[in-house]
């Protein structure tokens, strides 16, 4: 008892010795180093977030000062604005179909690269390159590839005798065309998966072989579960990014045939910088924020059920 007492007293003494001088010094030093970020955080994140929340309740074209209108923006959006519904639907389509497609493509590519092959850096480079091509350039290239008469795909298709496929000019095919381009540019996700795949312990594979698993079963029961943290990370970042999808949709189709590619971000840009309805656009931005948070929380909550963190027995 006495020994415990004295060690406890010693611990208190050490801690209080640290608290006074050392911890205050550490606190000031830490805050000092973090201060550029902190100031930036207040200026470029907190202030705009609060400001746009305020603007969401006003009518504001930049020329005249903001004019308070209460919830009108939000009610107009949700109830009356058909373009808003179309935009939200288009973006949800992209998220629900495009994000899983991209993740699957990236994972499959990484799995293929994970084998023992020569020239792996070369192949890896070929798959990664499309993702660093500037969006503008890839928009021009794909616009040419998808050209209904002379494009790469259609010229081959028509020379064989079929009818040309109207990739970007048909409302039905416009979004799938964009999803294809998205899957083409999955390089960064592929690299993350490659790193995760190489971290899967060999012992698990060997154990499954002893149990008589064939290649497909090994893939499904060992590889994928061990990579679920990486899959979660890629899915979350993909989700957040896809909700803000702008560049390719704008450059290729500018809202698209019959508003088929009028994505949320594009309609927001239109309202803000073409119609100069800043208040309306701010309300849209906040709805987007809430939607993203909801989806992120849903994915994160569900992750407790399907993500295995390292160290857990399979």
């Amino acid at each position: 008892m006495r020994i415990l007492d004295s060690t406890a007293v010693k611990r208190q003494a050490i801690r209080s010795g640290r608290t006074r001088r050392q911890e205050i010094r550490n606190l000031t030093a830490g805050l000092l180093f973090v201060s550029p970020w902190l100031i930036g955080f207040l200026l470029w994140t907190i202030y705009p977030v609060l400001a746009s929340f305020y603007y969401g309740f006003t009518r504001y074209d930049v020329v005249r000062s903001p004019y308070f209108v209460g919830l009108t923006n939000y009610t107009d959006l949700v109830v009356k604005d058909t373009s808003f519904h179309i935009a939200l639907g288009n973006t949800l389509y992209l998220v629900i179909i495009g994000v899983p497609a991209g993740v699957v493509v990236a994972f499959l590519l990484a799995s293929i690269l994970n084998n023992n092959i020569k020239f792996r850096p070369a192949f890896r480079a070929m798959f990664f390159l499309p993702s660093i091509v500037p969006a503008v350039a890839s928009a021009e290239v794909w616009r040419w590839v998808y050209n209904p008469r002379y494009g790469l795909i259609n010229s081959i298709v028509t020379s064989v005798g079929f009818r040309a496929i109207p990739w970007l000019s048909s409302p039905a095919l416009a979004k799938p065309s964009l999803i294809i381009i998205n899957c083409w540019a999955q390089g960064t996700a592929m690299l993350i998966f490659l790193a995760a795949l190489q971290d899967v312990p060999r012992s698990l594979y060997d154990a499954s072989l002893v149990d008589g698993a064939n290649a497909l079963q090994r893939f499904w029961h060992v590889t994928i579960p061990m990579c679920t943290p990486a899959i979660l990370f890629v899915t979350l970042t993909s989700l957040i990014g896809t909700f803000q999808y702008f560049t390719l949709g704008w450059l290729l189709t500018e809202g698209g045939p019959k508003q088929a590619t009028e994505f949320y971000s594009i309609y927001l840009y239109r309202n803000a910088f073409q119609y100069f309805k800043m208040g309306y656009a701010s309300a849209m931005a906040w709805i987007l924020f809430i939607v993203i948070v909801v989806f992120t929380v849903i994915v994160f909550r569900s992750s407790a059920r399907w993500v295995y963190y390292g160290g857990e027995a399979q």
Partner: protein
Amino acid sequence: MRVQQLLSDERPVDILRGKAGSVNNLAIGDWLRRLFLYVVLVVLSFAFALPLLWMISTSLKTDPQVYHIPPIWVPNPIRLMNYPEVLTQVPFGLYFLNTLRYALPSVVGVLLSSSLAAYGFAGIRWRGRDALFFIAICTMMVPFQVVMIPLYITFKHLGWLNSYKPLVIPAFFGFPYYIFLTRQFFLTIPSELSDAAWVDGCSPFMVYWRIFLPLSRSVLVVVGLFEFMAAWNNYLGPLIYLNRDELYPVALALRMMRSTFVEKLAWPYLMAASTMVVLPVILIFVIAQGFLVEGIALTGIKG
């Protein structure tokens, strides 16, 4: 034969699999599988590279060749003149310089701010450090659209529109993504180094400057490369902050060229311009492939 195999240093699993000893079956089955793998890889690589190859191929064509069905792959003759002609028709050099004019300062800004903030989050122990870092990470979830409008209005009142300031100055305050990357790296630097320095009486800044920075060359290169490529590819930012043609970076300029090149040779010129826009990024990638791959792996593993 089994006993002999067991006494050899074959792995038990291989023996159970029946591979050990059955050399012929092993060789052919394995060889076929590897051939199949290489075929798949080559086909896929070709498919992925196809749009880019098509871009280069079109940029070397003359006008009638562009519209030929079935498509011509290697134009004959190869019209290299397309490239100089694009450079003269459109002030491409100016657009290149413009892009550099905001990309390079923002790289410098990001390097400074991320390393400072990451050291604050990783190298010193203070109360509330991890909570604040968590908040920093959460800001990555805020869509750009939410901050875009007030930022635009603020910059308008400040008179910063039509300059590169809105694109460069925020970089000097730090972006959470790069702070995250750098911090993960700093966490791997053993604390004995900084502890020893503190015992010797170094201020935290000296520790940062003399110990952490020199050690983190690789992660700083990664952060710098990422930011440069992000700045090079950035479209929405310049779109809303810049209005005058002379200020356009390469991304906006390429979009503008779509309407400039309307007469003959439109598509070859456009593809030549696209190739020139893509080239620097590809060069950077080829040179720094190792760094880039390592950096991306860093985000995935620790994230």
